[in-house]
């Protein structure tokens, strides 16, 4: 498939300012966005894909989507320096050609002339929320805890139910010789571990590890020529969720939308999924994903994870058979890569025999990046056993 003729540039706008001492960098992104969209005869409400370089402030594309109030189903804040906007045109055209989005917005904004933000690595400036979050002592476990506390309040979810997620991960990790934490734990041990940010205990939190991972994707022709079993990418979806100007529902993640898109593209349903790799930065992260991806009704996650539902190989929904981020690995504080890698092992039938799901045909990997409560990037991938 080629992008030839599949996408068109409808709007273009250059900011008239050359010295903008009174503009925040997010505001510059906003002004050029409005300018280009006006040129196209479109509005921010029409945008479903967003592209910016890695120099956008704070969490980058997430911070900008939050500030602009975008409803995004495709995002790319990859960077290659000043040429990246040409790259983004190509990425956007490919996404449009693939039906991933319809209206892609690409923005650039910066103030190297009227600030000291000139050196590499200093160009991003302060994120838009800078004055309103760190000053109150916001930290990562606390923003996840706020979502957890509200879920507890609204649905009666208990610490013991959240603990079941860690227990399942630990039972799987005992078979992974590379896992950081290989010792199985009990619900009692989780709930009696020190409180970090209530209601989350120390053992509700993922590990901190060095490391990394990589993936190689090829086209069908190349896959056919390879001896190695290839895994088919059946579907993908992504969704940015954010604070909506303070009107967000903190118990809901973008998995509602990313999951829906991925299932639709893969033409499967949650009932067809044999294995899930769920982002588990905290136990609550996995619990919300189970609900929002549709493996159970909203609010039922706490009850769903009981009775070994997540245990491999025979649970209702075997999850994170490498031990996940809760026990195995969370390299560079980013858990998405390892979720796909273990899903590939499962679909190839190459997971540890003790946790290999028999006849694993369909696997789903889901990531929740950024922060619950404020701004998050959600992405879902569905893989199938069928080789090229």
């Amino acid at each position, binding site marked *: 498939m080629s992008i030839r003729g599949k996408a068109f540039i409808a709007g273009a706008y250059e900011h008239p300012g050359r010295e903008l001492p009174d503009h925040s960098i997010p505001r510059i992104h906003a002004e050029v966005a409005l300018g280009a969209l006006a040129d196209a005869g479109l509005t921010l409400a029409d945008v479903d894909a967003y592209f910016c370089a890695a120099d956008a402030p704070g969490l980058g594309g997430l911070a900008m989507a939050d500030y602009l109030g975008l409803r995004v189903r495709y995002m790319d804040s990859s960077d290659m320096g000043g040429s990246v906007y040409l790259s983004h045109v190509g990425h956007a055209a490919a996404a449009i050609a693939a039906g991933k989005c319809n209206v892609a917005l690409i923005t650039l904004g910066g103030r190297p002339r009227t600030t000291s933000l000139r050196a590499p690595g200093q160009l991003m400036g302060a994120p838009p929320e800078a004055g309103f979050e760190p000053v109150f*002592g916001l930290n990562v476990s606390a923003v996840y805890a706020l979502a957890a506390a509200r879920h507890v309040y609204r649905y009666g979810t208990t610490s013991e139910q959240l603990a079941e997620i860690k227990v399942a991960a630990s039972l799987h990790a005992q078979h992974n010789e590379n896992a950081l934490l290989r010792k199985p734990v009990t619900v009692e041990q989780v709930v009696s571990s020190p409180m970090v940010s209530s209601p989350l205990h120390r053992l509700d939190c993922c590990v901190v590890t060095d490391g990394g991972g990589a993936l190689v994707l090829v086209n069908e022709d190349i896959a056919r020529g390879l001896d190695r079993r290839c895994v088919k990418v059946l579907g993908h979806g992504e969704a940015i969720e954010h604070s909506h100007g*303070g009107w967000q529902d903190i118990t809901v993640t973008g998995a509602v939308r990313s999951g829906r898109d991925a299932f639709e593209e893969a033409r499967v349903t949650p009932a067809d999924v044999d294995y899930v790799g769920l982002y588990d930065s905290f136990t609550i992260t996995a619990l919300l994903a189970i609900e929002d991806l549709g493996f159970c009704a909203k609010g039922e996650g706490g009850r769903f994870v009981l009775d070994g539902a997540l245990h491999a190989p025979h649970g209702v929904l075997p999850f994170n058979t490498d031990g996940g981020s809760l026990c195995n690995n969370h390299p560079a504080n980013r858990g998405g890569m390892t979720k796909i890698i273990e899903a590939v092992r499962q679909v190839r039938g190459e997971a540890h025999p003790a946790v290999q799901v028999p006849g694993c045909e369909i696997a789903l990997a889901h990531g929740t990046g950024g922060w619950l409560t404020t701004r998050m990037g959600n992405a879902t991938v569905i893989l199938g056993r069928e080789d090229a």
Partner: protein
Amino acid sequence: MTLPAPVPDITPETETFWKATATGRLLIQRCAECDRCVWYPRFLCPACHSTDLLWTAASGRGTVHSTTVTSRGILDYKDAGSYVLALVELDEGPKMLTNVVECDPAEVFIGQCVEVVFHDTGAGVALPRFRPVTEAAAIPGA
């Protein structure tokens, strides 16, 4: 222990908000187009994308939407011990991240009525935090 009161990052976009805190006023932006109030302050309404946002005085009252006692402060809060980080739903609608103070952290609960208090940063602006509304304060004129 007393919570730190770090000086916020103030930009031309948020200067009006922070100046008002010096005189104990909580301002919030209301969109002239769709009438929604917006938190945090910015250049455009994230709901309808109008740039016609007006500063209005907030009541300073709200309810605790979610709350956590966290002991993992970073940066200025590295040595803050255990403190309450809360999401307070303002009477005007939006939810803001803040702290609940002047009470035992363990006694903050979802649904609790709170009111704004300002903690001086020593730099001419103050942080809007919240404290539980006491019975006495809840009685008009008391």
